[in-house]
């Protein structure tokens, strides 16, 4: 027995050591800066007078999770927005990486871990908004109480419906863009201006056209879907299986008809739009594309694209959409986030980011609600050489349809065209 006892002791100690190790693992798993001490959420703040929201947000820090892939956007946020919220409200704005699907995944894991939120504000739209709402990961409603919300173009379907989803005050409009092809006005002085003409151009110039696999590329497929399957009207009013199947078959048939004259005979597609820009700039293909019609000009200014790069709006119609900011369900500082969102909607902030030399991002404001002085300033900026005139954009703008169209088209394109579903 004595021998047994002596042998048992280390076992118990080992068991305690293992228990301690498990506790450490548990602690790591929980990552547990407790999630229960929640501040008033944005919906509750929206019930308070605006001055009260301002008072709560003064001197705080706001973490903004956003796409940080464009130096021009980063510069605008870090060097224009951040100093102004610091000056006006004493808010320290810190922009960090995190967008789209990654953002949804991160918030799901934070919820599972009951972790305090890592961000107060997020940059979202379309499928991301759809998934965040589906998973109940956004606070709201709050966007309608922002003082600058009164200036938003509330008559616009493109601004007030995010891929056919009602905003319901869960996200605040920030910018508006149009999908555009990008061509080199020296290399291709007479670019094709319709989907049919583009098809003929591809056939006559084998190896000089492709699209990317990511967001811009799938938007291009949706432009083709509208153009080849009866217009956007056929797909409006929510996702409908029969309309989708007809649209999908139509766009994939168009691709299959021309694919062997694509770059590398359609056997490979650039991973993202940055790779497509590189192929275009290096002369491997004659077109790039972007979800922002002004990217031709802004990227040319950055030296990424040739100075002769120009946006091309297809006459069959091109997808216009808006992007927004939202407040995650676990944001530690929703009051600060609301103040930043309000500043982003102010005429001066909207005008600044509209400048091609800054970002070239379209405004979500209704210019008729602004003073004559502000309207004049906007008109001056919109007339920048190389940018597409506003009336052209308005004439050919087509809204996004339900996010399921994007999801299904992406999946079916991967399976039937690209391979590697």
């Amino acid at each position, binding site marked *: 027995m004595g021998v047994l006892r002596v042998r048992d002791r280390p076992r118990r100690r*080992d068991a305690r050591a293992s228990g301690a*190790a498990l506790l450490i693992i548990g602690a790591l798993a929980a990552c547990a800066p407790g999630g229960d001490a929640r501040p008033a959420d944005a919906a509750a703040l929206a019930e308070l007078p605006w001055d009260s929201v301002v008072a709560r947000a003064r001197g705080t820090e706001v973490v903004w999770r956003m796409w940080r892939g464009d130096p021009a956007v980063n510069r605008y946020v870090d060097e224009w927005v951040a100093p102004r919220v610091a000056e006006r409200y004493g808010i320290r704005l810190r922009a960090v990486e995190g967008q789209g699907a990654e953002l949804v995944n991160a918030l799901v894991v934070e919820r599972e871990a009951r972790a305090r939120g890592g961000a107060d504000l997020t940059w979202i739209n379309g499928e991301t908004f759809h998934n965040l709402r589906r998973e109940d990961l956004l606070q709201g409603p709050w966007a309608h109480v922002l003082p600058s919300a009164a200036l938003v173009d509330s008559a616009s379907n493109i601004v007030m419906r995010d891929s056919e989803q009602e905003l319901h005050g869960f996200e605040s409009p920030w910018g508006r863009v149009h999908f555009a092809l990008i061509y080199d006005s020296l290399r291709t002085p007479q670019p094709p201006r319709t989907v049919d003409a583009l098809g003929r151009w591809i056939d006559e110039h084998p190896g000089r056209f492709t699209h990317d696999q990511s967001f811009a590329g799938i938007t291009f497929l949706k432009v083709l879907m509208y153009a080849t399957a009866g217009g956007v009207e056929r797909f409006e009013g929510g996702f409908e299986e029969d309309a989708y199947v007809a649209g999908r078959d139509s766009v994939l048939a168009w691709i299959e008809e021309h694919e062997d004259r694509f770059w590398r005979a359609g056997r490979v597609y650039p991973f993202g739009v940055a790779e497509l820009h590189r192929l275009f700039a290096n002369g491997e293909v004659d077109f790039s594309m972007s979800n922002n019609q002004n990217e031709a000009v802004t990227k040319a200014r950055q030296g990424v694209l040739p100075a002769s790069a120009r946006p091309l709006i297809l006459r069959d119609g091109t997808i216009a959409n808006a992007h927004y900011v939202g407040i995650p369900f676990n944001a530690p500082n929703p009051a600060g986030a609301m103040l930043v969102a309000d500043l982003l909607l102010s005429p001066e902030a909207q005008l600044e980011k509209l400048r091609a030399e800054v970002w070239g991002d379209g405004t979500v404001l209704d210019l008729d609600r602004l003073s004559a002085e502000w309207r004049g300033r906007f008109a001056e900026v919109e007339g920048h050489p190389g940018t597409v005139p506003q009336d052209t954009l308005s004439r050919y703008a087509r809204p996004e349809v339900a996010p399921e169209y994007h999801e299904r088209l992406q999946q079916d394109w991967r399976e039937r065209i690209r391979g590697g579903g």
Partner: protein
Amino acid sequence: MTSRRGRLGIAAAAILTAPVVVGVGYAVAGALGLVGPGASGRPSLDRTFLVLSESAVIEGTLWILWVAAASTLLAGVASMGIAVALRGTGRLDGLGRALAVLPLPVPHLVAAVAGLLVLGQSGFFARLAFQAGLIDGPSGMPALVYDPLGIGLIVALVWKEIPFLSLVAFSVLGTRGDALERTARGLGASGRDVLFRVTLPILWRGMLPAAVAVFTFVAGSYEAAVILAPSDPLPLPLLTWERFVDAGLDRRGDAYVLALLGLWIAALAVVAHEVVRAKLPSLEGAHQ
């Protein structure tokens, strides 16, 4: 003392492995549909069977295994050659050894971008060929990046892994080569016999753990593949990421299955290494 050391060892090992254990546990739960984006909350193996039977997954896995095997083998052979050629004590040998390991700190991402800038159809070689009148434009250049065989990716990885494997090879030869080689020569072995029956076996056996590390790293790495790999087949690491950020929330759970598949590949490589090592006769014992 021993038991205290043992307990400390267990605690240290637990701390080191905790992130892996937690990660694997979470991935298993995600693959079963219990946690993560789009999780149903009801445990099921359906997703696992469905994903593992997809041709895209099978092809993407085989493709990255091919790239990992080819790049490890080529880098390993080149490193052995470099180690044998530069094993002398002269100044030039020392300089050669230093130059051979010089690219060691270069990140894989930088190596991949360099591969793109050199081997791409508008890259350095293409521009040289154009200037020399050998091709009349980018499409005239053979496709060495985004290519189905992964030539560009393999070249970039071989360039990146040679310094690491060379460093290991120098160390193996420096610590274990001389005595056995002297013994073999003393027993009358020719220079050729010493090279093929003593030096190279010492080298490849000593480099085997490092080669396994390189193989598993390449099989699971994303950053070089995303720059240089084709879109069909899509390599397993890219497919894993693509599913993790799929626009459709319901497909994101596929990524947990694929991440576990990648982990299995790495674990199998380590197990295979242990089995091979256990079966190899000791070189030291062979001549005693």
